[in-house]
């Protein structure tokens, strides 16, 4: 087997081993820093092998091997776990209201508008600004455009999450307005 083929194979085996080590480490009553560290180090080594052997393809294959090992461990857990009598969590999600709690339809609609179209618009502005910044720093046009294509959904998800996590409406608005203004300013300064 040539080296480019061998390294991802070694990486895949190491990744499976790392997941099994994590299983051991996390299954202990007391946290074992050394075992935990060794497992993460082995996982890092596995990814490095995949990367060295076949770049992104190697990383993808090594990751699949790690997930396969994890699902194997989960299958064992599912088969061997005895039926228990534990009570399920009743943690309230407060979503939507229960009983006679106010519906707050206006507030919820505003939350939706801020986190879906609002966050999307801000993410697009930031993506376009990042594209221009990349160009100003000398990145090829293709890199800038692809950066925008990937950054926009990622930023949208982060902004939507942060908006909904923040309980204060003023801070929610600021969370969108400040990056939007910064992005617009960047666009204005960097667009020829």
């Amino acid at each position: 087997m040539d080296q480019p083929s061998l390294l991802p194979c070694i990486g895949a085996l190491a990744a499976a081993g790392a997941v099994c080590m994590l299983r051991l480490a996390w299954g202990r009553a007391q946290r074992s820093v050394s075992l935990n560290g060794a497992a993460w180090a082995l996982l890092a080594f596995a990814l490095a092998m995949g990367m060295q052997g076949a770049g992104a393809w190697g990383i993808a294959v090594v990751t699949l091997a790690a997930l396969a090992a994890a699902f194997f461990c989960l299958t064992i857990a599912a088969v061997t776990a005895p039926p228990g009598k534990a009570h399920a969590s009743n943690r309230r999600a407060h979503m939507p209201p229960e009983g006679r709690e106010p519906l707050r339809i206006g507030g919820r609609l505003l939350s939706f508008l801020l986190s879906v179209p609002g966050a999307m618009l801000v993410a697009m502005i930031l993506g376009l600004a990042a594209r221009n910044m990349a160009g100003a720093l000398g990145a090829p046009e293709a890199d800038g455009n692809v950066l925008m294509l990937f950054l926009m959904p990622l930023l949208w998800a982060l902004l939507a999450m942060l908006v909904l996590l923040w309980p204060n409406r003023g801070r929610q608005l600021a969370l969108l307005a400040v990056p939007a203004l910064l992005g617009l300013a960047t666009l204005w300064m960097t667009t020829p």
Partner: protein
Amino acid sequence: MTLRLSKALVQRGLSTHAAIGLLASALLYIVCLTGTVTVFYEEWQRLEQPDAPEMQRIAPDAVQRAVASVLASEKGRKTTEHLYVHLPTDALPRATLTTDHQAVHVDAHGRVVAKELNGWSEFLLNLHYTLNIPGMVGLTIVGALGVMTLALSLTGVIAHPRIFRDAFRLRARDQGGVGLADWHNRLGVWTLPFALAIALTGAMIGLGSINAYGLAQGFYKGDVEAAYAPIFGKEGRPNAKAAPLADVATALRTMAVRFPDVRPTYVFMHEPGTVGQRLQVLALPPRRLVYGETYNFDPAGRFLGTVGLAEGATGQQVAASAYNLHFGNYGGLTVKIAYMLLGGALCVVVATGTSIWLGKRERRGFRQPCLRNGWNAIVWGSGLALALTLLARLWLGNAAPFMAIFWLSLAVLVALGVALPERYQARRALQWGLGLCVAALVPTVLAA
């Protein structure tokens, strides 16, 4: 490993997770389910038309003959602007020509043998890509669902501080919601790398149209093609004046001699048979995530250069890798099976998420049987409706109205689920229905 987060943040995380889940779960489930089935897109096509000619390779001269004969058969019709030749691959060992007017299979000698009949596979792909909503709207909605998946993954981690510590604990047989929560959390945490990769690439693909529109408006005077050109290459200038057909055979022979390590998968001809015609060969390099590299040729079949998808700018390579990473077609059947299992796990995560939320409300005394039955109808009815479309393909043929069958049957099932009194076990009936459909499909699929 336990994340140390404040109680308030964890509670907000749970609320956010629930809010996004409730907003997106029904459509997200359909997208996950169809994505899982779409992993075997090539295999479904072979199933749909098992008698189409198959071959490991096709000779360059045979491809040239096939192109000439297909274009000759279109004399008198509007000149085709784009012609694609799918070359035999391991997953789909068939040679298929597609023009603006038709799609046909050819045999190893380049003779047209049959029309391509893959209506169900195309319906499935379209359902996954756009939820059958035409234009940019469907694609954008599916892209937004990718964004929601990203947000759900992140808030899921925030809402469950012990999610990694308990990563191997699966009390599968516990009743009263514990087992359900464990399935959701364990599969959720172990599909996290997969979910993030699928969601980000899916969102990038789905939102590509509006993002390209934004790029075009901002920097390319509204020209969307110009926004994509630095990544995927430029379209040539059309010149409709007639010219001899481009020499595909020479181009393919050049590929075999100059680039023996890559496998040609497609031939693209733009404005074939005109002065403005362009010839490109897409070829797959080994052990790469990119869907291929585009090799440009002049009409005489002389090599001009590559677009750079495999060896060009980082951005080009990243963009070209998104598709295979999303669809799982970069490592043969093994990776496809892994994607099917992971996709199935993602379906379980989505399905159990809303069920957990309903269960918690029921345990607190807020019973909502209509909602419960409606959700069950989405979970089991989507699979049932999809199975019905495949049965229609196998029993009625390629022209069966797949879209109508899927959406109408799902609408009826959901309406029945919501309307039926609580004593009727909608879930059990749907499970039986799905089981019967699958049982009916198995012998047909095996026979094919």
